């Protein structure tokens, strides 16, 4: 299938992009296009205009800041991130989410900003962002910027805190995690390339004794937006993790969950598997935090 007609603009600055976004009614921003163009080809989407961000310079970088934060330009490719040594060593959860995202061709074209702004409830990156306490930097015209925490950024399925007529995502910031931290991303799907049936991102930091200092656990595909398993997090705080504790935490973590059913799995299955993945993710993240495992 082929997309319906649209006007095409390829601005070279963020400012021009935002101006066009305001001026052109029904326009959409085009980043990597690996989701957008598919929906347009199926004619599920027919925006009147596309504003292509690929010719804007300075939105494609991975930068370690002095304060230990990692800044990622919105147009940075999945593949660039996945290959980045910093990401591999400091944010294994993000790296695993990227490694299991789409396929090589998608990772060669798709961008982190595009994925987050698209906010597909089954996408790999949103739960990872929530687990890692990412900050999302949003631009308005005249250089205006605001920063939104990943927790607040995702509002509903395919809906973010962005004002679709006025704002665009320009940068993602990942906070430094203490030395004794570990994280992981796990996804269950029938085919490796599929959107997840259930996915979990977990990030845990421990004290020298190995007791959990902080835990962040987020699920995808089980709710309209990434689901924080706060119940699980609180169970873990202050204690060492073992099979039993992880299982208890997982039970608590998915208590309130009422996942949707679709052609791949029912809500029942999603809930059952959520428990399992949360448990496994907690164990792995803790082992990584305590250095038992890389």
């Amino acid at each position, binding site marked *: *299938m*082929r997309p319906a007609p649209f006007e095409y603009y390829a601005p070279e600055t963020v400012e021009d992009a935002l101006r066009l976004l305001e001026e052109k009614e029904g326009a959409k921003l085009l980043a990597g296009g690996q989701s957008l163009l598919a929906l347009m080809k*199926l004619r599920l989407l027919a925006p009147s205009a596309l504003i292509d961000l690929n010719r804007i310079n300075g939105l494609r970088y991975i930068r370690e800041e002095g304060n230990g934060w990692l800044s990622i330009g919105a147009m940075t490719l999945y593949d660039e991130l996945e290959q980045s040594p910093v990401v591999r060593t400091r944010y294994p959860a993000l790296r695993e989410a990227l490694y299991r995202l789409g396929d090589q061709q998608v990772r060669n074209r798709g961008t982190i900003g595009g994925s987050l702004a698209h906010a597909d409830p089954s996408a790999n990156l949103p739960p990872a962002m929530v687990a890692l306490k990412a900050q999302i930097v949003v631009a308005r015209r005249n250089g205006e910027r605001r920063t939104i925490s990943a927790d607040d950024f995702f509002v509903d399925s395919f809906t973010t805190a962005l004002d679709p007529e006025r704002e665009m995502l320009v940068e993602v910031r990942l906070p430094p995690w203490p030395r004794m931290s570990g994280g992981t991303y796990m996804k269950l799907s*029938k085919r490796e390339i599929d959107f997840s*049936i259930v996915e979990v991102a977990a990030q845990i930091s421990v004290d020298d004794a190995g007791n959990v200092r902080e835990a962040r656990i987020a699920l995808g595909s089980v709710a309209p937006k990434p689901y924080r398993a706060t119940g699980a997090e609180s169970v873990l705080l202050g204690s060492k993790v073992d099979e039993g504790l992880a299982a208890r935490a997982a039970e608590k973590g998915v208590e309130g969950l009422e996942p949707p059913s679709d052609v791949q799995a*029912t809500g*029942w299955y999603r809930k059952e598997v959520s428990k399992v993945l949360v448990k496994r993710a907690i164990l792995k993240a803790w082992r990584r935090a305590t250095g038992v495992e890389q």
Partner: protein
Amino acid sequence: MSKASPELISLYTQDSAALTLKWLGKPLKPKEDHRLVRGRGAFVDDVQLPRMAYAAFLRSPYGHARIKGMDISRAKSMPGVLLVWTGDDIKKRMRPLPQATPPPARNAIDYPLAVDKVRFQGEPVAMVVAESRYLAEDAANQIDVDYEPLPAVMDAEKALEPGSPLVHEEVGSNMIAHVHYKWGDVDYYFQHADMVVDAKFHYHRFTGAPIEPNAVVADYDERLDVMTVYCNNQAPMEWLPQLSAGLNMPYPKLRVVTRDIGGAFGTKLINYVYMVLASLASKELRRPVKYVETRTENLQAAAHNAERTCYVSAAVQRDGTVLAIRMKCIDDDGAYSRHEPAGMTVWAQVSTGLYRIKALENDFYAVFTNKCPSTSIRGFSRAPHLFMIERIMDRIARKLGVDPAEIRMRNLVRPEDMPYMTPSGGLYDSGNWPDGLKKALEAADYQGWRRKQEELRRQGRYVGIGVVVGSDSAGPNMAQVKMYNPGLPYTSGTEGALVQMTPDGKVRVTLGTSPQGMGHETTAAQVVADVLDVDYDDIYVQTGFDSFTSIYTMHSGTYGSRFAPLGLSAVYLAAARLKAKLAKIAAYMLRCNELDVVLDGGKAFCRTDPQRAVDFKRIARVAYGNVNEMPPGMEPGLYSIAIFRPPFQNPDENRRANLALTYSYNVHVVVVEVDPETGMPRILNYVALEDSGRIVNPLVVDGQVHGAIAHGIAEALYEKYNYDENGNLLNSNFVDYLVPTALEIPPLSVVHTETPSPFTPTGAKGMGEGGGTAVQAVISAIEDALSPLGAELVDSHADPETILRILKGSSR
């Protein structure tokens, strides 16, 4: 039942004297591959013609609805739009598509565009032709249709109940056909058997999903009054009547061309509806018209396999001998009989499976539902039937506490019974099946895995082993359709070939087949090289099919694993005749007794005086030009045409007949582990043994085996169509219809035994469809993995949720 009679055996046995066995069996680099690895394949969508226009379709969003009205005015007025047709426009231009079904199902009215009613989601309701495919799609989206949704018929068994909504009112019920098969004294065996084992099984709905969708370019040439149709149909000659009737043009004016075809797996038989529509449009516009299906259209509306539900009972002795089987089966054929209900007879090729079962009864129904029409997807009808047989064998093994491999060993047809006559008249040609099973079990370290399974179970791991036998019955006897419609004038299964030595001594070959990657150019060249003993590289096989230059019969095409038994046999015959003529000319030119002429390495010499020799190139020049040097009275030229005709007969009054020419054999042994917490299955080991008679090219044969296994694994674990109760297909693109990738298909190991068929001159047997053995094996392995829970799988598809529900003892 018993060894076949000597008369019948001699009737079927073929002479293979012309083989030299110098070229058969070699892993020669396939001829086709050279252009394909260079991106120089010739596929339909590659055809670019001046002034070509593009077609797109508006399709029904409903599974079942009345068309109350349609507004095409906006679409018609759009820029670049050349033509907008609805069902009524088609109705004016052609008669309904011919129905092969018996009355009253034959009353069903089938047009390529829906008339008055839509009967499945994705059925075309309007056709747009425009200057580009973009504009054609734009216009199709501007057509307004006013539908009155109707209750959809989605359950084949309920469809037969009185008061069910009707897919075709004109038929009066949803029944397409009903046939009662009874071979041997079933009742006697059921009365006297030690026990009876019963089960219900369901074979699910999926498709072949070739990566190249259906495509056609129709080009009407006014000056010559010739319609050229570039298509990717698997059997163009089978559908020429439909095309000829649709266009009201005689065969000599219809040029149907196939070249490279991007896979088919049975889905590209009924795409003739698009061939008809594009041709009508091309004639109307006096311009070439191209239509290429989108993936969504392909998965929604091209062709599915027929779902099959069977109630199976087996009469069994305490020692595991299976005496007889009684079945009731229902095929869900979808909304139109465009190819079906052939499936309700084709299963009978392997009626009693690979076993010495004495009697069989099958009460068979085929029904209409509001789903996509079905065709012969890879393993057509025999795969689902063997699924029923192999699954009941597993149940019997479990009931008797006998190893599933052992129960099969006890019932397999024995080598001393070959050629073996089945109760339904099938003639199994050759093979040592018990020995093949033994070899497969060794290759897979079956006993080792059984031991490992015990250990792992103690560790709480769920590992299962499936061991299953199957057959690729191949080279179908089309007379089988008479079993549901005795009136059909369509029997046997034939194929044609031309082998010509051109004046330069090279060899040109044309085939009646339209291959989709089965290496016909390669294997045909190998047979010709072998018979004439000329160099493989000097043989040029025409790519694909061309009704203006190829030798054909109405059976011609590539389906039913028919090339090795039928196509290559025609090639052999044509080459052998050419060889004889070359020898005669050589004898004359060499002044040598014909019996002393030896053809060797592209030349002929006289045994009595090897110095006296002449090469084929010179013989060819003589035969075409220097004709006075030929034997007096001999017809010049070196053309050799052959049509191979197997000694098939029509089914007798008890519907007994041999329905295929060769019966290749396979054994699959697969080990699967399921994750007890998520239900995710993982294949740990896969071994397949194949005996497809003489191997012409091992590269081609192994490739076919790999492909068949991949499809089977896909069907068992990944590919399943889901319709909701309103007739919505919930997975009609590659997002949700899960074609497996290289990460899902595990490494596969293939071993061979090689028992030439006495019934084909080359000794090769048809193969490639795989008989669905992989589906049986994987499902069998999963059931085995779950057996500690006493689980029994009914369906041919097991997804993680199904498995987890069994593990958790919770039903959906």
